[in-house]
Every structure is written in structure tokens, then in C-alpha cells.
């Protein structure tokens, strides 16, 4: 690539467009949720009550904390406080890790109880409950995958800040990485009430 060419505005525009596509990806699942909820209010509520609200809440707090770290990291880099920025980014990676660990606890509990896609227990449940759990696993699984990608990205960014590839002069990569992490957070902000709180 001819590296004399640099366009931060273009890079940001590109990232925003990409985030739109991510929103739409989850959008498909939210549409399914809305329509099936409309058909199966009762079964959806029954199934939702069974989910672990405590773990869900903890995970919400964890993700928000992660977003906070990342936002701080951006201003730290702009003020040349490199070590602080690296620490904050690694903190962000940590929140991703804890989130996924909690998810692991939550899911292994469910699976232990026989609630997983295609399980014999689900087939015996009321029509509609199985769909709820299906959506639950697909949506949260996709989100979990995004947490994993996001954490990896934060790790790479921490490395770049450390080596000076990202610095107070050039930080659009960090901003974009941060935006990605905020998106992961934002999607969760929709998932949490829909699956754990509302019904």
C-alpha cells in the first residue's frame, strides 16, 4: 500500500459502516425474537423466568466497566500516557475474559439441566419455549463470539500502543477498536432486558 496516503475521516466512516452491518446481523435475530414473542408470549415469559438474572446483571456491569476502560484508554493515548493506556486496554481484555467465564458458568449450568439446542428435555416443553431457548443460545452465542473478537482486538491495540504504532498523533485505529467494543456492549444492552428482564 502506498503509505503516504492517510485518511482518518475515511477510516472512521468505514468503521461506522461496518458497525451498521453488525447491527443488522443482530437485527435479523431481534426480528425473529419480536415475531416469535408476539406468537408465544406465555411460553417466552415462562422460559425467561428461568434464566439466571444475577449472572446476567453481573455481566452487564462487567461489560460497561470494559467500555469505560476503553474510553479512558483513548484519552490516555491522546495525552501521551502510554503505560496507563496499555493498562486500561488490558483491563478491557480482562473484562471480556470475565464475561466469557461467567457465560461459561451460566451455560454449563443450563446444559447440565438438559437445556440446550436439540435436547430431549426441550422437545417435551411447551411449543414456543424451545424457540426461546434456541434464540437465547444463538443470540448470546453470537454475542459471545463478538466479545471474544473484541477482546482479541483490544489485546492487539494494547500491543500497538506499547510499540508506539498507535500514539497521540495516530490513534484512529484505537478509536475504531474502541467503537467496536462499544458496539459489543450496546448489543448486550439490548439482549439483557429482552432475555433476562422484561418478561
Amino acid at each position, binding site marked *: *500500500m*502506498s503509505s503516504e*496516503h492517510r*485518511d482518518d*475521516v*475515511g477510516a472512521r*466512516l*468505514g468503521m461506522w*459502516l*461496518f458497525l*451498521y*452491518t*453488525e447491527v*443488522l*446481523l*443482530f*437485527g*435479523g*435475530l431481534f*426480528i*425473529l425474537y419480536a*415475531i*416469535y414473542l408476539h*406468537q*408465544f408470549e406465555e*411460553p417466552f415469559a415462562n422460559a425467561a423466568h428461568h434464566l439466571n438474572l444475577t449472572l446476567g446483571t453481573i455481566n452487564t456491569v462487567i461489560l460497561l466497566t470494559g467500555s469505560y476502560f476503553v474510553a479512558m484508554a483513548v484519552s490516555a493515548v491522546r495525552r501521551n500516557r502510554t503505560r496507563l493506556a496499555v493498562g486500561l486496554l488490558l483491563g478491557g481484555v480482562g473484562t471480556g475474559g470475565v464475561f466469557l467465564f461467567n457465560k461459561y458458568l451460566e451455560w454449563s449450568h443450563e446444559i447440565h439441566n438438559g437445556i440446550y*439446542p*436439540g435436547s430431549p428435555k*426441550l*422437545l417435551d416443553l411447551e*411449543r*414456543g*419455549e*424451545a*424457540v426461546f431457548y*434456541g*434464540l437465547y*443460545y*444463538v443470540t448470546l452465542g*453470537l454475542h459471545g463470539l463478538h466479545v471474544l473478537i473484541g477482546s482479541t482486538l483490544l489485546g492487539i491495540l494494547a500491543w500497538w500502543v506499547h510499540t508506539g504504532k498507535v500514539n497521540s498523533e495516530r490513534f484512529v485505529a484505537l478509536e475504531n477498536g474502541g467503537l467496536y467494543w462499544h458496539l459489543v456492549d450496546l448489543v448486550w444492552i439490548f439482549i439483557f432486558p429482552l432475555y433476562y428482564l422484561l418478561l
Partner: protein
Amino acid sequence: MSTPSVTASDRGFLGDGKYPGIFGWILSTDHKRIGLLYLYSTMTMFIIGVILGLLVRLELIAPGKTIVSADTYNALFTLHGVIMIFLFIIPGIPAAFGNLFLPIHLGARDVSFPRLNLFSWWLYLTGAILAVTSLFTGGGPPDTGWTFYVPFSVQTTTNVTLAVVAVFILGFSSILTGLNFIVTTHRLRAPGIGWGRLTLFVWTLYATAWVQVLATPILGITVALIFLERVLDVGLFDPARGGDPIMYQHLFWIYSHPAVYIMILPGMGVISEIIPVFARKHIFGYWAMALSGLAIAFAGSLVWAHHMFVSGMSDTAILVFSFLTFIVAIPSAIKVFNWVATLYKGSISLEPPLLYALSFIFLFSIGGLTGLILGAAATDIHVTDTDFVVGHFHYVMFGGTGMAFFGALHYWLPKVYGRMYDKRVATWAWGIIFVGFNLLYFSMMVLGLRGMPRRYYDYVPEFTNLNVLATVGSWILAFGLVVMFINLIRGMISGPDAGMNPWGGKTLEWTIPSPPPTENFAEIPVVTTGPYDYSDEVLAPEARR
């Protein structure tokens, strides 16, 4: 970089790779090299797709078993559809010619994200390899049709899982290309190029890019769901568990109808480039052309459910979607009328690119008009899932986008390689293709009207004659394609020097050497007129605008 000379012996970007040999291509971030990579790979897939199509047609030459078993037949039309749609017609014009010429039309040295551009091609290649691999591995080639309708796609033991992974990856590639084009169009226009001076090709690529970015993610999630259904048995579309198979169809068509515009809009852009050049006239209704592209992209996103009139939707929904479908016809008709108006009293030279453009207008109009029959629920219910539908979409996609693609080949390859093909042979090839095409697909439309269902392996003896006609048409068509390709390839390797501007075009690519140098412009141009300014050409006074 030295100032490039204007002879064909100077190989411009073709000769000037960063790495030696093949790596200079597959690792190149030059938009033109990536464009050619796409061109070679989409053409390869097209040829595979044509062979599969010919086999389908050969099987149908007589009732009963002719060459393959019923199962193989299902696999043949599925792979034909998947390859033609996801690997040829969607990436075809935007990824190949868009990459070649979008930056040049903007007066830029490259796209905004050159490395992402290369990554898109690698994704395309991966998707293509997986799609072809799905033929030979797993439980046999997919047999669901390219639409992957549930419940069959979830239950069949054939290699659907791999095929949907391929489609997912291809979708990702398409999104990244679209994203890159949007940002490039916004950020890298040369001084003097306002929105009113974009070429119409760029306008349609821009509209297409938005559709790619906004619709493709839905396809992503849809095929991801098929994948998860098959691997994990989630049951989101399984009525026994409360799921609804119609929901699959909605999700699928929310992408796949707009995808039709990903397929056709860039083709319209190519036609809008070719016509003014060979009529030596300013394009009629520049803004109507530019905005109708956006209008098609927008209105086209609202009409997906016209594919589902017989699926059991409510009557109200049918009425609404039918109405919306008719609305899309308006901007499409605007385009057709404006092309004709541009030709009117132009000083026309019937060179091969223009012949393809004219056949585009003719065939696309037939495709569009038969589309109205499908858009009206009453008539659709009569012909749905018959060969009429297959005839219709081949008129639109092959007669439209396919012809535009061939037109683009004949129009731009002399620029890319600096050499000219044999125009007389090209004209003959065009004629053969045109005859074969109509014989093939018109027969299929008539068959459909008489009740021959699509995707059927066998048929009643009354349908034999028309089926024979269609199959013979497919051979004529294929023969024409062979002549066309051989002529083009020979021309590109050893044709006479084409010079900088063989057609007398006014857009920016004709102001730089053929083949273009690596960074396109020695100096970024400053543009002072619109792209179709023929006011200096000698024309009959009444034709001057």
C-alpha cells in the same frame, strides 16, 4: 515514477508488480490487479456455471432419464444457481470492473482501503473453493436449490453445511467491497469532481454498495442460522417447537430481493457509460439517471415478499407487496427511456460494446415486463414455480447483467491490456449469443406458461418439442460464448495496439495510457467538465444539446 509512454509495449500496471511472479498478483493491493483477479476468478466460475447449466438443459431434452439420475439433477441446478448468483453475477461487475475503474473515474490512485480490498478477494477465493469443494465432499453435492429453503435444507444429508459456510464468507467479501467503495466515493474524488460530475457507472456502484452493506448482513445471519440448525438442531424454523418456516423465507428474501439490484445496478451503470460514447452525445437526463439508481436501490429493498405470494402470507401483505413491486418498475423504466433518448439522433457507431448494450436494453425490457406478470399476485399464482420464472430471471440477470458484463469486457479490455480484439469476430459472436439466448429462454417462458414446473426432472411428452428447442438454443448460446471468449483472449494476448482512447470516450480512464500505469495518474487530474461532454464533436445541429 517515470512518465509513461503511450505504446502497448509499455505494460503499465501489468508489468510493474511489487513482488515477482504470481505473488505480485495475489499479494498486490493495486485496485487494477485486484480487479483482474476478480475478473479471472468470476469468469472461471461463470464457465463452470455454464457447463452445469448445459447439463441441466441436456437432461431436459427428453422426458424421463436422459443423462443423470434425479438426485444428480437436483445437485446440478443447485450448484448452477449458487455459482451463478453468489460467485458470478453478484461480484461480477462491481468487484471486477468496479475495482478496475471506480478509482480511475474518481481521479484517485487507489481505493480508500487497498489492503481490505485484497482481503475481500481472498475471502471470495476461499468462498469459491469451499463452494466447489462442497460438490465432492460430505454426503454429496447440495440439492436444495440456491435458496436453501427449510425444512429440506435442514434435513437433507447432502453437503449443505459447507455450502452455506461458503455463502457466508462470500457475503462478507461483498460487504467489505461495498464499504470500501462508499468510503472511496466520499473521500477520494479528485478536485473538481462534485456529485454532479460522477460518472453514471460510479453512481450505480455507489447505490449498489449501499445495498451490499445494508442487505448482505441479513443473508449472513440467515445462512448462519441454516448452519446452526444443521449442526446444533436449534429448531428456530421447526413448527414442532414453535418455529415458523415462513420466517426463513422472509429473512432469505429480505436479502435476496435487494441482491437482484446488486446484480442489475452496476450493469445499468456500464450501459450508461457505453451508450453516450457510441452515440457521441451527452447522456439524456443525467440527474434522472443518477437518482433513479438510488431510487431502485431504495424501493427494491421493500418488495422482497413478492417471492412468497403462494407461501401463505395474508392477503393484505400480498396486496402491499404487489403494489410496492410495481413501483420499482418506474425508475427502471426511466433508465430505459433515457438510454433510448440518448441514442435518438446520435451519431451512432455500431461497435461491439454498443451491440451488447442494445441487447441489454432489449432483453432487460422483456425481463422487466415479464416481471410485472410475476409482481401481480393474480398472474403470479398461475406461473409461480414454473419455467416462466426461470425464463424471466434469465432475461433479467443474464440478458441484463450478463450482457452488460460482456459489453464491459468489449468496452474496457482494450484499455486494460492496451490491445484490440477482432471486431468482426466479436460481432458474429454477439449475434450467435443473441439468437441462442432467445431460443433458449423464450422457449422456457412459453413452457412455463403452458404449465411446465421448474426444478422438475421429468415432464409429460407434450412439452418435448419446446424443451428440445430450448436445449438446442443452449448449445447455440454456448457456441457463441466460446467464440466470444477465444476472440477476446486472442485479442488481449496478440491484438493490435489499441491506443489510449480507441472509442473516443470522455471519462477519465481514456486520458491515461493503456494499460494504465500503477498509480493511474502521474498527477491527480483537476476536472472541469462533466463526464459526457461531446459538445466539441461534429454533430448534426438538431442533435446537439
